Structure formats: structure tokens, C-alpha cells
């Protein structure tokens, strides 16, 4: 590797990491939290079979899952202003990523809720518990354990997915790399560097997932 290249890459590294920490991670965390709230609500509405709302939830999941994320980003950021709705780039990204991943995570959560044996709910009722305390103490904790690998998947995919925010002018890590590359023209090296940062971080998340699964496993197998 030439000295020039080494210098370019080592100069780029702190700038990339800075954007990673100040943009990519906050974007991921906020979007994921939004997605989590949406998904739990949407899954619980379907689980409880709330008439009317249920149909709304299916419609939401249908539309989100059957249109591209990129198109959704463009629609909100470039399309909505013509209706007078103007949002900054960062909030737009949080909103779109959250709403988008929320649909997938809602399906993960719904599957997990449905996998909780019906007898758990019935036993709760017979023990004199209310619907909400059964949900809180029994059904949701079990569902979260089942959903955990799927939700981890969503989180990891979201870390990388935030790079799409670059197309609506959010300068997260990937866009920073594009900007630097505009000065130095070292696509192969720079984008490899970016890829490696994603790789390292997502590997950490993978380890974290494995640790979390062990933690959640305290109560052993389901008989």
C-alpha cells in the first residue's frame, strides 16, 4: 500500500468514525426505538383482534413491505413538500426508517405473541389477573424472548440501512466517505474502509445478541 493511500485512509478514519458516532448511531437508535414502539403496538392490536384497527395495521404492513425503502425516503423528503409538509433530513430519516422497519418488526412480534401458548393467557385469567397484567408479566416477556433473534436482525440491518439516508442529504458515515472520495478519488480503499467499520460494529452487535439470548434463556426450554 502506498504511503499516500495510508495517509488518506488514516486521515479519513477519524472523520468517518465521528460521523458514525454522531449520526449513524443516533439515527439507528432513534429509528429502532420508533420501530419498536410501532411494532409492539401493531402486533398487540392484531393479537387482541381489535376490530377496525386490525385492518388498519394489516394495511400499514402491506403498504410498507411492498414498496421500496428508497422510494419511501424520496416520497417523504422530496414529495411531501409539494403538499406543504416540509421536514428536515434527519427527522425524515428517523421517521421513514422507524416506520419502515416497524412493519417488519411488527410481523416478528406478532409471530412471537402467537407462539405463546394460549393456556398462558387462560391460566392468567383463572388466577384472577387482568388482561394487562397477564400481558406484562407473562405474555410479552415470553414473546420478547421468541422475538429477540428477529428483532436483533432488524437492528443489525438498520445499522447498515441508515447509509440510505445519504440520498436525502443526511451526512452520516457513508455520505462522509462519498464526500472525502470526491476529493481524493480512492473509491476502492475508502469504501472498503467504510465497509470494515460497519462489519466490526455489526459483529459486536452479533456478539451482543448471543449474550442477550443466553440471558433471556434463564427459564429454560418450553415443555
Amino acid at each position, binding site marked *: 500500500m502506498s504511503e499516500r493511500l495510508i495517509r488518506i485512509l488514516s486521515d479519513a478514519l477519524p472523520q468517518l468514525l465521528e460521523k458514525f458516532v454522531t449520526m449513524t448511531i443516533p439515527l439507528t437508535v432513534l429509528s429502532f426505538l420508533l420501530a419498536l414502539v410501532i411494532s409492539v403496538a401493531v402486533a398487540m392490536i392484531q393479537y387482541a383482534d381489535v376490530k377496525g384497527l386490525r385492518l388498519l395495521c394489516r394495511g400499514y404492513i402491506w403498504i410498507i413491505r411492498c414498496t421500496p425503502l428508497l422510494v419511501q425516503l424520496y416520497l417523504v423528503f422530496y414529495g411531501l413538500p409539494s403538499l406543504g409538509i416540509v421536514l428536515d433530513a434527519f427527522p425524515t430519516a428517523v421517521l421513514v426508517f422507524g416506520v419502515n422497519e416497524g412493519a417488519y418488526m411488527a410481523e416478528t412480534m406478532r409471530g412471537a405473541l402467537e407462539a405463546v*401458548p394460549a*393456556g*398462558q393467557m*387462560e*391460566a*392468567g*385469567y*383463572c*388466577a*384472577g*389477573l*387482568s388482561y394487562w*397484567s397477564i400481558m406484562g*408479566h*407473562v405474555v410479552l*416477556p*415470553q414473546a420478547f*424472548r421468541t422475538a429477540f433473534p428477529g428483532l436483533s436482525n432488524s437492528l443489525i440491518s438498520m445499522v447498515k440501512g441508515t447509509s440510505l439516508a445519504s440520498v436525502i442529504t443526511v451526512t452520516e458515515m457513508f455520505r462522509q466517505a462519498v464526500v472525502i472520495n470526491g476529493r481524493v478519488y480512492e473509491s476502492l480503499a475508502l469504501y472498503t474502509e467504510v465497509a470494515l467499520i460497519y462489519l466490526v460494529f455489526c459483529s459486536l452487535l452479533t456478539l451482543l445478541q448471543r449474550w442477550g439470548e443466553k440471558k433471556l434463556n*434463564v*427459564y*429454560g*426450554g*418450553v*415443555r
Partner: protein
Amino acid sequence: MLQVKDVYKSFEGKGQEVLRGVSLHVNKGDVTAILGPSGSGKTTLLRCINFLERADSGTMIFDGQTYDMHRVPKDQIRRIRKKTAFVFQNYNLFLNQTVLNNVTLGLTSGRKVPREEAETRAMQALRRVGMAEKAAAYPGSLSGGQQQRVSIARAIAAEPELIYFDEPTSALDPELIGEVLSVMRELAQDGMTMLVVTHEMEFARHVSSQVVFMEQGVVVESGPSEAFFEAPKTERSRAFIRSILGQHEIR
């Protein structure tokens, strides 16, 4: 204490009615065994009585109050359930909670008993079924017999007026049935009111005081257990007793 009258129930998509006018009467301290061949509607009856299923029609008198079983509102259902307990065939312990929490949850969350008192009562109940030393274990690590005993502890800790059992020993390996039955026998001797769906003829004959024999959604015969086993009134009861006792002798 509990009386149900003319309970009817059919399931969607199934033409035949599963319960066709079932009535029964349970007095305080009674241990009533519900007997009958598979598919006769015993489980469905218990589930209707505890509102896990909605009866199509029927009247229930519990603690002097009369309820239309088809239309009881949710808050009243919950009030009735707090005075009763249910022991399931497959235990249905809360899988993510320890044995102790399985017993306390209905007290702390369901009945607003303070945590400390709930734990004292739970430990008493667990001692009664011989499961106190497993208080910190999770249900998944227990044998079926142990799980069922915990589920009985969960039932009695709530100090219910009446406990329903739906074939509490049918999911158990033969060598584990005895430990559960003996816990139930002690409960009966202590005066607990119990309504028990069972295929255990020993229990029906010697522990229960009343028998309700069902077939195809109707009560064929009911009365004191002695009389039922010594001098069954109907040909159907005679045939049932013969077939069941026959099986047992073989085992």
C-alpha cells in the same frame, strides 16, 4: 354455593351442540367428580363455568348471585374468577416465572395482596403440596407431577371458594399420578370445595362425595358417589362403570 342450569354450547362450524342443557349443583365442601367418555363435553362444561368459553345460554348462581352465562360482563367475570381457581390438565404454569412467582402473581397482581404477605401465603401453599424447596426453580425444570402440584399451590394460595380441576392427572406418567392425587385427597379432607373432571375411578369413588356422569352433552346421572358406583340407576352408567373398571383392573 354453585349452581348452573341449562347450559347450552355449540362451536362455530360444528353442527352438533356440545352441551345440551347441562345442570349441576355444588354445595360448600362437596367434592364433585364429573365423569364421562371422551368427547362428552366435560372440559367444555368447566370452561363455560369459568367463562373461558361463552355458553350459548345458561344460568349460573354463584354465592347467591344469579348470572346469565351468555351475557356476563367482563368485570363480573373477573370478580367471580377471583373466588375460584382452575387446575389445568397441562398445568399451564407461567413459563417465564419462578415457582414462587407463579403462586404470588395472582395474589399481588390479581388481588392486591402486599408482596410480603403474598410470599408467606405462597410458601405455605407450596409446603402443603410439598414443593417449597423448588420455590426458586422455573417450571421448565420440573417433572409433570411437580408442575401440577405447583399449579395446585397456585390455586389454593388464592384461598378460593371453589377449585375446578380438568383431568389433573391425565397428562402425567403413571408413577407421578399418585403424588398429585394424594395432594387432592388432602385438600378434600380439609373441606375444600372441588369440581373435578377425572378418569381416576379410585378418586371418584373414594374421595369425591358427588358424581355427575355426562354423555354426549347431557347429564345422564348424578348423585352421591356411593350410590352411583354401588347401584347406578341407568344402563349407560352401568356400562360406563363396567368399561372403566375393566380397564383399571387390566392396568
